């Protein structure tokens, strides 16, 4: 894969694409990314993204020199692919987990920091329910990451933290995102 380096800052971009659901379409849609020297970070199929049955919805995250972004967009469009959205919302994987235990006494902000400080995953929402003093509290965390591997690593960190802080973590079913 040719790797094009030009002056200008590298940015991470996410795109929602919609294309015909036929063989070769996805490969064809992604090809321009390498042609402009971009790096694909994640490709996520999203069935619910496509508006019609015969189309395929795909989210991609890529890294690209900012100055070549316009060129890339026209190249993708030239291949008959519809770009629904472009954004800097690079954290596409979302996972909900619930924690139970003495969350405040075990420094909740530290627990959250352990995920945030990774750089590849963030706790983007936290809902906390605190009953009477000395009773275990419960929290719902929404964690976002760039890719599935990053999510797995983030959850590994959280499980390790939970073990040392004696917190119960409730995750979704194996292999499911909620």
């Amino acid at each position, binding site marked *: 894969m040719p790797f094009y380096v030009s002056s200008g800052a590298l940015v991470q971009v996410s795109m929602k694409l919609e294309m015909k659901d036929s063989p070769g379409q996805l490969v064809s849609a992604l090809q321009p990314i390498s042609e402009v020297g971009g790096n694909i970070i994640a490709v996520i199929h999203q069935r619910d993204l496509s508006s019609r049955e015969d189309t395929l919805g795909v989210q991609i995250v890529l890294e690209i020199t900012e100055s070549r972004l316009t060129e890339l967009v026209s190249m993708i469009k030239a291949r008959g692919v519809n770009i629904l959205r472009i954004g800097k919302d690079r954290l596409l994987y979302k996972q909900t987990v*619930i924690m139970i235990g003495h969350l405040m006494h075990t420094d909740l902000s530290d627990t959250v920091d352990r995920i945030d400080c990774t750089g590849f995953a963030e706790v983007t929402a936290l809902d906390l329910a605190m*009953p009477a003093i000395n009773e275990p*509290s419960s929290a719902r965390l929404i964690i976002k990451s760039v890719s599935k591997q990053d999510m797995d690593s983030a959850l590994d960190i959280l499980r390790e933290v939970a073990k040392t802080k004696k917190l119960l973590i409730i995750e979704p079913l194996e292999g499911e995102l909620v």
Partner: protein
Amino acid sequence: MTIRVAVLGLGSVGKGVLEMIARKDLGIIVTGVADSKSGLIDPSGLEIGAVLSSKKTGLCGNPSISANDVVSRADYDILVEVTPTNAGNGEPALSYMKHAIERGKHIVTSNKGPISLHLKELKDLAGKKGVLVRYEATVGGAIPIMHTLGNGLAGNEFQALYGVLNGTCNYILTRMAAEGLTYDQALAEARELGYAEADPTYDVKGIDAAIKLVILANTIWDNGASLDRVDITGIDLLTTDALRLAEEKDCTIRLIAEAFPGRGVLRVSPRIIRKDHPLVFEGTLNAITLETDMAGEITLIGKGAGSVETASAIIGDILFISSHVRCN
């Protein structure tokens, strides 16, 4: 053809089996019964009504006849072993079964202890003696999971299985979510309704579900799964708030047993699960989802416990044996 069975154990399951044999014309006669303190043997077939009424007032039979006597002396084709589960070493059921197999008798059991601990040993022994060991009733109550695995889905490869294998926990979680009950309140209610034992430890700590998971994993993959290798988390530390936080996101929490051999996952734990998922249902039902190469995904749902429901599984096994092998 008449099938002769000896029934060990006259608790809820044993009584249910006897009642159904008496009520339905299935071609099954009972030539021996035993509870923990007495037994009866009659080669021409016991009068079941009399056995059940004498059990109501105490012992089912003669105190001088033991379960061992029934196993070793009675004339029967199939030993129906439905004594209480001993998850520690499977005894005394394990010895009864081995002895019966040595005598060339088939085994039908609801006993999770010996099956979770010694399935391979029992199957090997039975193979040598040319008899069958069937244990449909050990997992999922009335759900014909073993028949489905062994017959309906024969030839499939199984990538994963996951399910709700403990009705008590499912009931408690349902009530915590629906009514905002605390764990202790929901457990008390389950006890009052007879859904939870006086000592609910096995259920709420996830051990019962884990034992069933071990049985399923060994049946499907023959992979030497054992209870100490299951990663177990119970439901006893769950809070009403946790259920509410899940429900706010159109999800809930269920105790799910999961086996994904490819990922090294053998686990029982409370999981967040979408409310529209097939494994989310109310009350004491059980369900098992199988992921297969040919059939795709299949979910079986049904009553996971109960006297007659479990008898359904036992009788299914008895009739399977009688239709597949010649009982002498």
